[in-house]
């Protein structure tokens, strides 16, 4: 397995080998699915749309609907305006969404199609909406695409219509699973705070089996709510790479202050989310959540010997990896290799993103750990790092399985995409409950390995 990867690391500048990121449009498509009765539309050749739908479908195992401008060579020469106009007409006539969310591809970006003008001059039926975002694949990553589409929702839809702000919070969950979005909503509900989550793919890409297919399932943020985000008292953006930009835009456009937090993975980040809600809305943390936290800490202390001191390599999307690094540190583990494929600067120049390398390094330094940290890296390099300094556990998306097999490492799947296991998208990794689940996955991976490797005389009943 991966027998052609040498241990010796040499600098490379020709591109990536075994990427840890993909292109912007897939993130935009995913975000757009988080609007109720929205059809994402890919403005480019058919291939991109097909690939993005396939990949999202494999991860969620649920229908992923999106249309395409189906560029041919002619459109590439003369521009895709006519294609988009035809597409808009046909989409509303045949598939009848309430809103179409158009994103570009590297083709339409390179051509330089002027989307606002095309959309303005297109035939859009009464009461229907078309929004767009630019997602050039040669910048950032799929996380940037998610961020850009979310920001466009603000640009097109958010409005400040009231004199004073409502006692409600906007929550931007970031590029996470519907199971995570549901868990965040449960937490905020438990605190008794009114909220608008956007985008919200729960109920869309985890829709139930009913024996009937509905093209637009019940889930997704309602258009009225998206509009109302401009009236909220505060926006909590979870994950700086995926969510901060939209929150910043909402602050500029509608005067809703933005609070940027980590994706609430692990105990510290969840504490921070609860503390932010507590102080913003002056509500006490209900016992139900305090109890969950207590249970989590109980498990952490009771089983610390299962994971303490173990060396870990973590890769994936920047917001997820940052929070996950913090969590394994609170478990006493040693994240010595931390990598994201998303470049440090995230998206276009001037957009609000975090600073992955600096933030992760700060966490490591605080814990007194020296480790390799990289933004814009690839899995070829991560594999080489591991060859040079072994770890006890690998955490990352499905693509990590090749490294795990090559180096015989226990492997915990988390993040996007997970293509070889199911159910993950329904169950949370966020919040205290999510942290328990992660802890179970980590412990099980390590203990199963210990069982596998134990000699008969060392094989234990109780561990």
């Amino acid at each position: 397995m991966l027998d052609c990867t040498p241990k010796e690391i040499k600098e490379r500048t020709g591109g990536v080998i075994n990427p840890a990121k993909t292109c912007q449009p897939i993130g935009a498509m995913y975000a757009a699915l988080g609007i109720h009765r929205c059809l994402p539309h890919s403005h480019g050749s058919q291939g991109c749309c097909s690939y993005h739908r396939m990949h999202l479908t494999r991860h969620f195992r649920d229908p992923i609907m999106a249309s395409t401008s189906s560029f041919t060579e002619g459109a590439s020469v003369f521009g895709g305006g006519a294609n988009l106009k035809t597409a808009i007409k046909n989409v509303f006539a045949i598939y009848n969404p309430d809103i179409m969310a158009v994103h570009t591809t590297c083709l339409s970006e390179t051509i330089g199609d002027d989307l606002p003008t095309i959309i303005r001059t297109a035939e859009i039926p009464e009461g229907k909406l078309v929004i767009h975002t630019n997602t050039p694949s040669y910048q950032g990553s799929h996380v940037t695409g998610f961020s850009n589409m979310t920001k466009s929702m603000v640009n097109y839809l958010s409005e400040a219509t009231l004199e004073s702000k409502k006692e409600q919070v906007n929550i931007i969950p970031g590029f996470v699973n519907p199971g995570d979005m549901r868990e965040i909503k449960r937490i905020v509900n438990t605190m008794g705070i009114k909220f608008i989550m956007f985008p919200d793919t729960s109920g869309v890409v985890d829709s139930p089996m009913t024996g009937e297919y509905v093209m637009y399932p019940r889930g997704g943020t309602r258009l009225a709510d998206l509009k109302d985000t401009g009236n909220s008292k505060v926006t909590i953006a979870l994950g700086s790479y995926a969510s901060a930009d939209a929150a910043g835009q909402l602050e500029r456009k509608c005067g809703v202050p933005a609070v940027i937090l980590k994706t609430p993975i692990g105990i510290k980040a969840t504490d921070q989310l609860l503390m932010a809600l507590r102080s913003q809305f002056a509500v006490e943390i209900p016992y139900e959540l305090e109890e969950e936290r207590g249970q989590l800490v109980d498990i952490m202390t009771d089983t610390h010997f299962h994971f303490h001191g173990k060396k870990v390599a973590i890769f994936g999307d920047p917001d997820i990896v940052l929070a996950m690094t913090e969590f394994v540190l609170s478990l006493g583990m040693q994240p010595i290799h931390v990598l994201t494929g998303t470049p440090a600067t995230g998206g276009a120049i001037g957009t609000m993103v975090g600073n992955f390398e600096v933030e992760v390094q700060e966490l490591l330094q605080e814990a007194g750990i020296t480790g390799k940290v990289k933004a814009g890296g690839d899995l070829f390099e991560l594999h080489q790092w591991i060859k040079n300094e072994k770890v006890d556990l690998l955490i990352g998306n499905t693509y990590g399985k090749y490294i795990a097999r090559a180096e015989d490492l226990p492997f915990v799947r988390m993040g996007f995409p997970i293509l070889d296991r199911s159910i993950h998208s329904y169950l949370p990794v966020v919040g205290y409950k999510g942290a328990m689940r992660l802890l179970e996955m980590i412990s099980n991976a390590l203990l199963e390995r210990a069982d596998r490797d134990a000699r008969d005389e060392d094989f234990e009943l109780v561990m």
Partner: protein
Amino acid sequence: MAVNEKVLEELLNRYPAKVKRNRKKHIIIKDAALARQEIEANTRTIPGIITNRGCAFAGCKGVVLGPLKDVVHIVHGPIGCAYYTWGTRRNKAKSEDPTKNFINYCVSTDMQESDIVFGGEKKLARMIDEVMEIFKPNCITISATCPVGLIGDDLQAVAKAAQEKHGVPILAFNCEGYKGVSQSAGHHIANNGLMEGIIGQGDWEEAPGKYPINILGEYNIGGDSWEVERILKEIGYTVIAVMTGDGSYEELKNAHVAELNLVQCHRSINYIAEMLEIKYGTPWLKVNFIGIQATIDSLRNMALYFGDPALIQKTEEVIARELARVEPIIEQYKKICQGKTAFCFVGGSRGHHYQGLFAELGIETVLAGYEFAHRDDYEGRAVIPEIKPDADTKNIPDLHVTPDERRFRLKLSPERMEELKKKIPLSDYKGMNIEMKDGSVIVDDLNHFETEEFIRLLKPDIFSSGIKDKYVVQKMGIPSKQLHSYDYSGPYAGFNGAVKFAEDITMAFVSPTWNFITPPWKNKPLLEGIVAEGGCSEC
């Protein structure tokens, strides 16, 4: 309910007029009484239509080139296209020397904004250098993605310079996603490149064994080609090269020594088959290793081609033995599948190939079609002269080959060739439609709207297609079988594959999981218990 012209018209009437006019030409209801039924294919998908189709890059790098295992495939473009074609197609490969198997690697120039503005040629050249240094492959391919053509990077020039520098073949493919109207354009581009750059470059003048053959258009999804090779090798054939499943540069370069080329997927590889015939005088035989009878027919046709009594006898022996082994098993599965109906909508050949296998299980295919085939895949190669090239097809250059002065050799006398052509599909393909029953529906480039509507009308028991529509159909309570990826199962080819397929399809029918769709409270009035209690005075 069957679909008749009136029902079809009603369905189409729900389209905007322009779309209706277009789609009408892509759908036919089979009627053998008509002298001919023309179907439109390989034309543009209308913008806004939710299609299953992909792009030329997918057909070139994803389908034809990707499976070549000892070749490093560089994708020149932004990251996405390379990423999505990494390990997703299930074209399995194994190598004696694992350091010469690059199948699990994904190499992309990951173009950034500055590369788009100032050109990506230098970065590509650096990537080639790095690949040579790290992997030392015997061959490299470079595939272009959408923006590359627009910014004017000269891939061919970069490849040529690198080839001179490194001394190994470096092939560039201008398979930008906007070319043609589907994956099909990419197949053609890949076929041309392999023919020009690899096939015939080896120095073999003679085959190393008896009955040398190539297997074309077989991609070893789920291990299909390993099952086919198991049978062929036992009969006594020498497999020179498989194009391209578990294939390699090292085998492909000597493919010219074969005496016969088998064509499994006609759509994706017929160009090479034809060019091999012109250049080396080697005819091709349309085979189909999906389904027991189709496999048997293919084996018999091959034996007849070589005409050697010993080979014919060995073929019959293997067939008899395999049949005795698998038929009783299939019979068991058939008891469950008998009388059911299927939709079979797949890429460019499986829409046809799987119908026979379904029939062997007692399942009738009531709707079939291809995602990106041409008219000849439906109506047979006889229509090729009638197909007028349009602007989209003209953009894909034809490669004109001529007989190889040294190596061209007629494998059969013209008389024998003519005689055989009457008996076996030699250098010919009769298409899918001819084998379909009257009243069945044939749809080219089936889209989401039509999928939903035809399912409502025909209520099939199983739907076979790809990943994008799989869960749409399953939400309706109908099992869906991916026939691109086999739902991570397989092989489905040959005798063992037929058994595996029967097992998987039966599993889809008998799985108890389907029984829970309706919650028990849905058909029960809420107050039933109380009413019963109150009204039980009589008993």
